């Protein structure tokens, strides 16, 4: 056994995992679940209805223009000369085919009325009204100065995951998690947005429009959910190879539940209860994992990858790509590149025993 364990990769013991993508929650701007998305959803409904009516009206006018009956005397002189497939119309000698003295109306004045009425006055009125609605909605969804007093969460976009920090004046009470944002129901939560490598964009369509996360800048948005629930969000600015698999989950909970959750997140990882647990922890701390990941309360303090202090409490793995089950966790550790090709997480060589120990340890981090 020992002689071949070096050759044996961890994958061979893990049951083959089909990367089952989980849409843990809806991701639709058409099903608003908070005041931000609702304001935008309302203006979308308005524009969808009026835009459809206007479009169909223009098509109707075009249809009539094409198919209406015409009196011969209302047509301009050119209309007598059909497009001739044999191309023998031109008088090659003289070059022109006009006949002087033909004076049927060309209804230029009618034309100007069309252009001014349909092209300027009508859109002018519609757009002015729409512009007023735009300003109103802009005002109602903009972050407010008073938000600063509210619960503030900092979300940092990274290739290809989200670091989430619940800010507090007391540095020891800052909770750090990843790819999951819990908020209390019915409260406006202020979100500070940043990025550590390239530009990302924070978008949870069910709750709010998107805001970019730009290195060197700090943007602000806010979220509020009307009722408990889960919503999926996704990076909306192209950020490299795994842009497609950079998702997060927003969970809205009643205040008490949220508070309890936050307290657990603030706390460092609990020390293992028994010797088996301590052995698993030792396996983790001895592995390559600690080069990138932190588990508060242990010596592992690297900040390159997501903070794993309470990883078992999260809903998903790999930035929303996998449900957080034991099998998926082991599979993700053993072979991240087949789940998320190009991901920054390397496949660390592990023996099956090490893999199982690490998986058990991480599953214990509630």
């Amino acid at each position, binding site marked *: 056994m020992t002689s071949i364990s070096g050759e044996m990769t961890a994958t061979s013991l893990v049951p083959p995992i089909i990367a089952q993508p989980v849409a843990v929650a809806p991701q639709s701007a058409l099903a608003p679940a908070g005041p931000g998305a609702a304001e935008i959803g309302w203006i979308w409904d308005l524009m969808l209805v009026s835009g459809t009516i206007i479009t169909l009206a223009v098509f109707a006018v075009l249809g009539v223009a094409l198919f209406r009956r015409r009196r011969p005397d209302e047509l301009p002189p050119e*209309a007598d000369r059909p497009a001739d497939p044999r191309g023998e119309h031109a008088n090659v000698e003289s070059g022109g085919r*006009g006949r002087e003295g033909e004076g049927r109306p060309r209804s230029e004045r009618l034309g100007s009325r069309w252009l001014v009425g349909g092209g300027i006055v009508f859109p002018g009125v519609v757009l002015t009204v729409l512009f007023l609605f735009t300003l109103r909605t802009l005002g109602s969804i903009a972050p407010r100065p008073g938000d600063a007093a509210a619960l503030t969460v900092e979300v940092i976009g990274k290739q290809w995951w989200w670091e989430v920090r619940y800010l507090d004046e007391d540095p020891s009470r800052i909770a750090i998690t990843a790819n999951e944002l819990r908020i209390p129901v019915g409260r406006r939560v202020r979100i500070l947005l940043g990025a550590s490598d390239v530009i990302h964009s924070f978008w949870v369509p069910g709750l709010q429009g998107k805001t970019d996360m730009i290195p060197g800048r700090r943007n602000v948005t806010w979220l509020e959910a009307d009722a408990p629930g889960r919503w999926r969000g996704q990076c909306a600015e192209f950020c490299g190879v795994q842009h497609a698999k950079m998702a997060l989950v927003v969970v809205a909970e009643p205040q008490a539940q949220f508070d309890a959750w936050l307290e657990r997140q603030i706390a460092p990882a609990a020390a293992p209860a028994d010797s088996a647990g301590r052995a698993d922890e030792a396996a983790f701390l001895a592995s390559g994992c600690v080069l990138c990941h932190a588990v508060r309360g242990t010596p592992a303090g690297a900040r390159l990858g997501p903070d794993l202090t309470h990883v078992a409490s999260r809903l998903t793995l790999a930035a929303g790509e996998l449900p957080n089950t034991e099998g998926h966790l082991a599979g993700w550790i053993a072979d991240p590149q087949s789940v998320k090709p190009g991901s920054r997480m390397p496949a660390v060589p592990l023996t099956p025993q090490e893999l199982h120990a690490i998986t058990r340890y991480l599953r214990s981090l509630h």
Partner: protein
Amino acid sequence: MAERADAGTGAGTREEEGSGNVAHRPPRTFDETWDQPAGVQGFLATIDNIPISMRYMVTSFAFFVAGGILALVMRVQLARPENDFVDPQTYNQLFTMHGTTMMFLFVIPFLEAFANYVIPLLNGTRDLPFPRLTALSYWTYLFGGIFIYSSFLFGLAPDGGWFAYMPLNDKTHSPGLNMDFWDIGLSVAEVAALGAAAEMIVGILRMRAPGMSLNRLPLFSWAMLVTSAMIIFAFTPLVVGTLMLELDRKEMTRFFDPNAGGDPLLWQHLFWVFGHPEVYIMFVPAVGVMSHVVQVFSRRPVMSYTLMVLAIIATGFLSFGLWAHHMYTTGISAVTLGLFAAVGMVVSIPSAVNIFGWIATIWAGKPVWRTPLVFALGAIVIFVIGGVTGVMVAVAPFDFQAHDTYFVVAHLHYVLFGGTIFPIFAGLYYWLPKISGRMLGERMGMWSAGLMFGGFNLAFMPMHWSGLEGMPRRVYTYPTGLGLEGYNLLSTIGGVILALGVVLSIVNFVVSLRRGREAGNDPWGGDTLEWSESSPPADAQFGRFPIVRSRHPMWDQTTVRPAPEDDPEVVRVANAYDRRPERWRGSLVVGVLDGRPIAIAHLPRRSIWPFVLSVGFLLIFTSALLEHGPIAMTGAAVIAVALAGWFWPVDTEKTAIEETGADRVDAERTAEAPLPLAIGDRQANGYWGTGVLVAILATASVTFLAGYFYLGEGPSPLPDGFAPPPLVPALLASVPALLALVATRWLTSTVDRRADGTRWIAATATALAHLAFVWLGIESFRASGYRPSEHGFASAAFGVVGFGWLVSAGAAVMLLVGVAWAVLAPRDPRGRGVALNASLVSYFAAASWFVALAAVYLWPRIS
């Protein structure tokens, strides 16, 4: 004395100094003058607008097909969730190259090619003013396109998006050569577009048929005029931006590096200041094409010409106030959002005017159901939908949801298919009979239109919903369970149908070339001048210049030949240039507003140098990619040789000068020459072209300044010890700059006074002043302690002053060429022309220093 060649008889058969070009016997007859060179060398040396624009069209259409194939591969990948038809890396290459190809290698070049072919015919002239520039544009574009696509051979296709956002595409996050291929290859396409724009502006303003005043200009010409002006002001910031990007990638500067005083948003501003006008650069020519098709197939002039023209111009202006549309979600202030939302809505008004203009034209006319009209109707329907969704995404709060999702993918394809692709097909079905002399198959055309229209809507209509249901753009896959499966499958099916429609049209084009019925001069009963000529047109296009008395000469005039009511002066000129001049290529120059002939322009006949020059460009760009010194040296040598060859005196030009007496003082000018030769003074096309060049340089200068002020006010404060550069050396450098201004004034006055004896002194003095300025300017900046490779603000300051030195050095070279002319052939009008052109650049170079002085040396002290 020199014999007086008689333009009236063309009898002057004196041998040219034949020693230089043994292979090229000087042409003796009109047809010989305008014929096409034969053989391989002829293929490379031809500069006529017709063969060049045909190659241009075929090449860009090939890129259209390539870009379409890339899109189909993407649609296959997205047909079902979690598909693994292509890997993520490849997918990123696909969408990057799809966007790049369609924008830069298909639409813009194709419209330029179209305009190159059609504009001289529409405007009743024999060629464009700078035929060698036409050829240069084509060759550089061809090499640039091949350069970008060659990246596929090395597996290094660009993968950072066609918009190349920073810092994703800096050396840290994109270490491969992929984006270097993109950036460098793109520069080539930009140069080609700028060249074509200069050509169009001067050609449309100055080279038209007698009587074609500005208010009789065909709408496609108006559209190309406006488009070309937009290209000047939009592509130049892109050239500057891509230059900054490449310098950042080589880590020579820090324009966009947030960790060193740069700002990634600066790139977005520069890119979209180009990128939004770009949309209208593609749309405006289509407005012109549509107007022609609609009026001819409605059998009546387009409604309200004046409003249509004003709408085109308004679109051009407004398109520059929209760029932040692409940046609504970057955290810009609410006031800015409101402002840009307002402009975004207003820009839809001129488009609405155009749409209603076409509908009213159809209403008042009598529609003739032929393929071009059917494509045009498809364009109207699609564009209206795209316009309505365009207003939606202009509404900033809605854009917070729609931005960077498939909703925008749907919107932009509606705009581009309705605003560009369908009009291009309408235009092809309309003008190909003129180009090939053969009719296209009507039934196949109708099928193609139907398939394209149906397939398009099936492909792109569902994307509005997939976007709002949560599908971001540029994702190689999407999970099951979000409800995106159905929409995407429909889109893929639609994409395949759309492709079938395009294939059917291509088959139609090819089959018609062999089997199509003869088109005759005027298959459609068209209204504009091109239908008075044979199909395909003769090499000279208009042996006899038509006389224009109406906006629709073929509908309103009994003849385009001289008529009793014409101005006798115009008749005299038209008759005098009836299949003349014979021994050199000449075409009329008319007054910009009234279209009265004022001069005759000499056009070069053939030249290998545009081809050689573009090979030199290719070598330089390859060396920039590989950072390879010897290739760079070879490229520089090739460019130097090609430029010398290009500007070397042309034999036929000498003939033209002698025939028209342009080398004599006014009193002695040949009485028989009907019009003066447009050379060596402010009527020369070269002078106008130089004016456009200065507009490009000024735009570039403003772009550098804007970047400088933006970073100066940006989020990254200046590091300590970043003292403003010392004033004294800068003031010292201002002395020669001031002297250069004065000397330039002197130089232009020697040209105006025909003081040919003193011109060389003035030119030398100006050149020396520029060289002294460049030297002192570099010294003054070195004294500043700004290190461009260490801080973004220093990079920006360097950009401002460095560009100035570059232009000054260029002006000095031009001036020295002027000195050579003034010494070797003081009375030759070409020498005066060189001096006059150099003086324009010289004025700009010297004057722009004082702006740079205020910005870089004074502003940091007062702010």
